């Protein structure tokens, strides 16, 4: 059994967290940790090693973009892939997130296969053929 991948989901909506955790449960060998907002996310990040981060933008206390900036500025986690999942669908928002260092930008409502595919791509997990 290979070493499991670890994923941090930062999302203030319990419903979206539940939906994401449900979707990510279909990725083999992936352990998911949940965080309520950016600050909680940074706390969880400091206490463990994560291979990928999925974060919302609009959150109380610390939003997703600030979280991206903080993660990219942290030498320990600066290379961790980050996926933004948000209701903000404009190109400006997308560009801003990508400029800050996000690796992917997915708009809500999410489609589970799209999220799964992006996570596998960034974690370099081989997708099933066909």
């Amino acid at each position, binding site marked *: 059994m290979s070493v499991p991948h670890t994923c941090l989901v930062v999302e203030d*909506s319990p*419903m979206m967290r*539940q*939906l994401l955790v*449900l979707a990510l449960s*279909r990725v083999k060998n992936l352990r998911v940790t949940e965080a309520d907002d950016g600050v909680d996310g940074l706390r969880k990040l400091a206490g463990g090693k994560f291979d990928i981060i999925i974060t919302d933008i609009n959150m109380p206390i610390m939003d997703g973009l600030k979280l991206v900036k903080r993660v990219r500025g942290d030498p320990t986690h600066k290379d961790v892939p980050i996926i933004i999942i948000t209701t903000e669908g*404009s190109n400006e928002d997308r560009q801003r997130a990508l400029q800050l260092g996000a690796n992917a930008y997915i708009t*809500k*409502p999410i489609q*589970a296969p799209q999220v799964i595919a992006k996570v596998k791509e960034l974690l370099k997990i081989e997708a099933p053929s066909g």
Partner: protein
Amino acid sequence: MTEKKGRGPRRSDRPAANVAADLKQKRDAFLHTFFRRGAELTDELVHENKRLRDEIAVLEEENAALKTQLASDRAIRDLLEKIEGLEREKSRLLSTVHEHEEITNRFTNRFAEIEQELESFANLYVASFQLHMSLRARAVARNVKELLVQLIGARSLAIYFLDEQEKRLVPITSEGVDLAILPVVKLHDSATSDPVGAILERTVLTGIAHVTEGEITSRPAACVPLQLEDRVVGAIVVYSLLEQKRRFVTVDRELFKLLGAHLGATLVAAHLWTTGDGRLPTPDALRAMCA
């Protein structure tokens, strides 16, 4: 019998030496002629032999060429047979490949269908879970609005509830649009000029949901009746969708069905729970009601 006359002297008349010389001369002449003819014949035979040899050589060459051609024809025929065999094999393999492609396509399509079904189930499970997670009206309203925004992609929406006494629909909560500006919609008001109000009224009176097919270009995008038992007690109105969401998909319609069937009861239950200060009914009271 007559004697021949005038032919010169008879043999017996000439001297023997002359006769011998004459005979010798004749013999020599004969021999000369004989050998000359023999030589000529020999020459002819040699020529004929040479001609025949040449002809044989030509014929042998032709024969060799024909043999080669025949061998070549055989090789070609063998190759043609081999090609035919290979063509048959190719056709069989292509047919097998097509069959396998069809099977693969069927599996791929089925896989996509199952993916879609899984997504639908996941969304419905989460929606149902969140909808019934709380009996506080505010939490119920918040969860429903979040469901509509996050799962369906609604930008602006409202929930209307029926005022039975006044026969009107009153907005009770909204998202993306100010509740204060939302109109109260009177039922059986055929004079209404507001198209959204008209659709809302029709939805509640008929109990049939209005969910836009294809690209959404007009408001409201959807209007879903809230069922409670056999009555319609209100409606969800989705005015517009997020920029990136252009049309409803199958799972959205399933979510609308779920919300339409559950939200009315959840809101009424939340109201009863709140007005009852969260007191549990007694088992006796419940048993009496269940009997």
